[in-house]
């Protein structure tokens, strides 16, 4: 499969805690993206990290990339109940994206 794999499949934390989600992939990449999906809705692009970058920040989001391990992580700091959603990593192929199966994050108020 060309899809990535997110880990864990599900994560439940208390509001205010940090949430870390991991993504592994099998082939080389140009870049890796993270998306968020609220229940029953479309995906929203969160952040893109290029293969020559190791870390990137956007607000409360921090993404790291380790190309030697073919893995990436998404950290959400100071989580809020509104962060409850599914999070997907996506690896860029030749001209389309290959998505992982997602991590379901639940933030308990």
């Amino acid at each position: 499969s060309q899809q990535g794999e997110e880990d864990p499949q599900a994560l439940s934390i208390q509001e205010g805690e940090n949430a870390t989600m991991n993504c592994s992939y099998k082939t080389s990449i140009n870049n890796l993206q993270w998306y968020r999906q609220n229940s029953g809705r479309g995906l929203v692009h969160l952040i893109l990290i290029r293969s020559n970058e190791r870390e990137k920040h956007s607000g409360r989001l921090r993404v790291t990339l380790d190309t030697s391990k073919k893995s990436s992580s998404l950290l959400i700091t100071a989580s809020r109940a509104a962060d409850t959603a599914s999070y997907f990593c996506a690896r860029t192929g030749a001209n389309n994206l290959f998505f992982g199966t997602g991590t379901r994050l639940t933030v308990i108020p």
Partner: protein
Amino acid sequence: DVKVTQSSRYLVKRTGEKVFLECVQDMDHENMFWYRQDPGLGLRLIYFSYDVKMKEKGDIPEGYSVSREKKERFSLILESASTNQTSMYLCASSYFYRTGEDGYTFGSGTRLTVV
């Protein structure tokens, strides 16, 4: 804001029917995509298009066809709907042939049930 609009949020169709799912984007994006999303399987690419009248098969094109007669519109066609095509269908678009900083913009999805 970039918008990708899918014509229906929910659809119920009968086995054997021909089904059209419509997607329209308003930002002059070159690329458009159709995915289906199923529990435990994530998003799987059905077809994509990088220009008018151009189409490329994705990972699971069987049972589907597409049409792109205008740049802003990308239609997914189920020639003869079957129950195993019950799923959430997501349309997406992007500016670049190779995805740039914008990433993909997704529609809200169409939940199709085939009975």
